[in-house]
């Protein structure tokens, strides 16, 4: 798994709100700058690539219940502005079918968008460095690097949210104290079954180390698989349509049934 579908109700309110703020501004900017010219071409391109990400997520490539995300590949095809929009769209659709929470669309978008942006930047940089001669290998490396960095980003966010990450009610009303819980400190845990006095659980403390161990071990398998698959697809595409990965307009287009191109 290359990124976590963070569910609803797990992260502290401040983190959820802050990520919505960042995401909405980024999407707004991307909508503005990405849509300044040639919208007619960009709407279908965005639709096609975002849909391709969803299709790849909903199909098993390796018969071990692992699904690809094609984030880096899509980042390379879309460039930075459109990547942000595609990340947002993909997460809206995912949230509505239960993959990742609705309230955390903001945070999940930031995670995927950073994967796409990093992948795009790393691929472009490395590919130029190797003079477009090793595109497939470069894509694989860029993918693994991008995924490793964003996983670290996720661990960082979880560490940042600290114990509040599990004291979900940060900022919520604490009925016993008669006040609202502090936004940045541990929240209220009212999980007691029937009697608040007897069945109190201690405030859970998130172990960043434990969390990191888990995502790095599970994740690294995913990075490598995704890296191989991205490399294979980029290799395939750069043989069939070299222009596509170089970010030029595709010079080859099928016209109707004629198999000719222009």
């Amino acid at each position, binding site marked *: 798994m290359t990124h976590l579908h963070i569910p609803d109700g797990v992260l502290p309110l401040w983190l959820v709100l802050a990520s919505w703020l960042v995401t909405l501004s980024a999407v707004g900017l991307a909508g503005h700058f990405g849509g300044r010219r040639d919208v007619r071409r960009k709407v279908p391109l965005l639709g096609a690539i975002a849909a391709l990400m969803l299709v790849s997520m909903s199909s098993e490539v390796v018969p071990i219940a692992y699904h690809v995300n094609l984030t880096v590949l899509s980042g390379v095809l879309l460039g930075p502005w459109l990547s942000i929009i595609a990340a947002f769209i993909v997460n809206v659709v995912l949230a509505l079918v239960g993959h990742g929470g609705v309230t955390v669309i903001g945070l999940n978008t930031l995670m995927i968008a950073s994967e796409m942006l990093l992948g795009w930047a790393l691929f472009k940089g490395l590919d130029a460095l190797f003079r477009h001669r090793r595109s497939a290998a470069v894509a694989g490396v860029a993918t693994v690097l991008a995924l490793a960095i964003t996983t670290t980003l996720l661990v960082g966010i979880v560490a940042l949210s600290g114990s509040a990450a599990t004291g979900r009610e940060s900022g919520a009303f604490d009925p016993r104290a008669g006040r609202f819980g502090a936004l940045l400190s541990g929240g209220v845990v009212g999980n007691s079954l029937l009697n608040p006095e007897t069945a109190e659980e201690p405030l859970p403390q998130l172990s960043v180390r434990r969390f990191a161990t888990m995502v790095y071990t599970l994740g690294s398998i995913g990075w490598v698989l995704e890296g191989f698959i991205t490399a294979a697809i980029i290799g395939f595409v750069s043989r069939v349509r070299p222009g596509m990965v170089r970010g030029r307009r595709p*010079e*080859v287009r099928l*016209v*109707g*049934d*004629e*198999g*000719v*191109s*222009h």
Partner: protein
Amino acid sequence: MTDRTYPAAGHDHAHTEGCETVVRVSCVRHAYEDGTNVDLCGLEFTADRGSRVAILGPNGAGKSTMLFHILGLLSPQEGEVRVFGEAPSRDWPKIRRRIGVVLQNVDEQLLAPTVFDDVAFSPRQYGVPEAEVREMVARALGLLSIEQLAARVPHNLSGGEKRKVALAGALVMEPELLVLDEPFEGLDPKSREGLIALLGRLSAERGVTMIMSTHDIDSVPEFADYAYVLAPGGHIVLKGTPAEVFARADIMLAGNIRPPVLAELFAALRASDPDAPETALTIPEAVAALGEWRSS
């Protein structure tokens, strides 16, 4: 056929002016980047107001290239294309309201998320008031008898239904020119007959001009008044009424194009017996012609 071109502005849906030329393609050459050349040359291509013109030819002959030039999706490197007197690749916005289009991949042409919204797409983009849009959509759906599909989502329609929705979307603005790429593909026999009848009505009653590409050569006489035959490479080798075109089965075969079965039969008959009759293109005509030939 006159040389008059249709005045660019102020069209008034009066379709009585005889045979204006709505579309003209004069010797357009198109070189694709991979080296393929399409030369829409040889004979000039014209479509007159109210006529139903079929473009025939094998796969790869340049039928789609021709349509794409007429629709301004390609711009001629050489030669000239005129639609309603304008160059479509430059002035498409000026003429697009008067043209309805259905290309081959109907799936991909349904842009909006519901059938109603899809048929309403063009009028809304052109700023037609919503109340009027509803009337126009109802009319277009009615023409194709698919009112019951209005609320459906395009992706779970059948292939034939999708084609009808795409057609409704092309007809909604009541275009003067319809451009259809393989319009009968994927339709079951009954829908096919219905569509042929509808197109015939539109051309006869409203003077709609139609340009249709097809490789279904046998049924051309049923739905076209005029036919052009492209040979591979785009060369226009034959033009005329279906009867005129199919009388030349020899030219078609030489150009690696399969003529209709009856045309081939009559050509073969004439080869074996110089007295054999002229090509007949429908079964009753053929029976009559053969009967006469026998008793002669």
